[in-house]
């Protein structure tokens, strides 16, 4: 093969790789930008079943099921921005809510692999989460000082 032919092949191969890399990079950048636009919170607290603040908030663990209120809940009150449940299965049932005291939790109930409920405004409240059956999942709340 002539030397110039090889040069063309190398050039074209480089163009192919560059074009592919550019396409992937643009797509990833777009996803990342959307993700950043979608979410902003000061703190997060993971409270099922282990407790962690501002790290591992979305990590799935084995949760035991219970329809009873305050099955899993935060150890303290805060001004909640939102409260979330996420699980492996799309057929899971759960309760999710808040309470100014640990005794009474108003709630949302539903079926799906994830949910989020809006916050408590300026009110300091506990956050609660109760899957009805044993699941692999997580509950966390976003809050601010």
């Amino acid at each position, binding site marked *: 093969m002539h030397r*110039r*032919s090889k040069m*063309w*092949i190398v050039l*074209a*191969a480089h*163009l*192919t790789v560059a*074009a*592919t890399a*550019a*396409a*992937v990079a*643009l*797509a990833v950048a777009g*996803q990342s930008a*959307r*993700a950043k*636009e*979608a*979410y902003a919170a000061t703190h997060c607290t993971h409270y099922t079943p282990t407790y962690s603040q501002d790290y591992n908030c*979305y990590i799935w663990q084995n949760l035991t099921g219970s*329809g*009873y*209120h305050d099955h899993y809940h935060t150890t303290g009150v805060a001004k909640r921005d*939102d409260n*979330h449940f*996420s699980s492996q299965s*799309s*057929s899971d*049932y759960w*309760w*999710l*809510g808040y309470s100014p005291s640990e005794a*009474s*939790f*108003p*709630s*949302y*109930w*539903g*079926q*799906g*692999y*994830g*949910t*989020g*409920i*809006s916050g408590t405004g300026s009110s300091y409240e506990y956050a609660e989460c109760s899957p*009805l059956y044993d699941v692999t999942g997580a509950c966390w709340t976003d809050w601010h000082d």
Partner: protein
Amino acid sequence: MVRKAALAASLAAVAWAVFAGTSSALQASDRPVIRSNLAVAAFPAQALPQSEATAVNDLIGVQLADRAGITADSFEEVRRIGQTVTGPAYFIPGSHGACIAVVAEAVVCGDPGAPGIPSIALASFDARSNRLSGIGVAATTVNAIALETRAENVPLPLANGVFRINTSAPRESIRGFAIH
């Protein structure tokens, strides 16, 4: 010379095909779609106002949005599926899942219509009256759906792939759905 030009043109075409194909595939995978076995696909599509879309998107969050494939395009193709006690409920399609949202209140996401997943639902519970009120979406394979409690199965009205929940039951007695 002709062979060189042909080779160069061929390789350029391959490069363009790879670029266009990759871009197209990535864009296509982002487009919201509603499974053909969900009757809500026939509901009129509408765009959520920007402020409402932002509020719902914040509630969905990054994790759920990625999982269901919810993007900005999703909020241009929402379906209003009914009124709940806490506000109108919307079906928001993703590229590989969907959410039900009551603006500024709550969202639930899943993959209704996928194998083994006949429904998703969202309901608020008033602890003072023990009343559970909400809405859900079911696949066309669902003929009847009931709320299963410890005491009984409460049939839920189902029309056009949307079912309503409005029943009084102690919280601890609620188990899930019985689907036929």
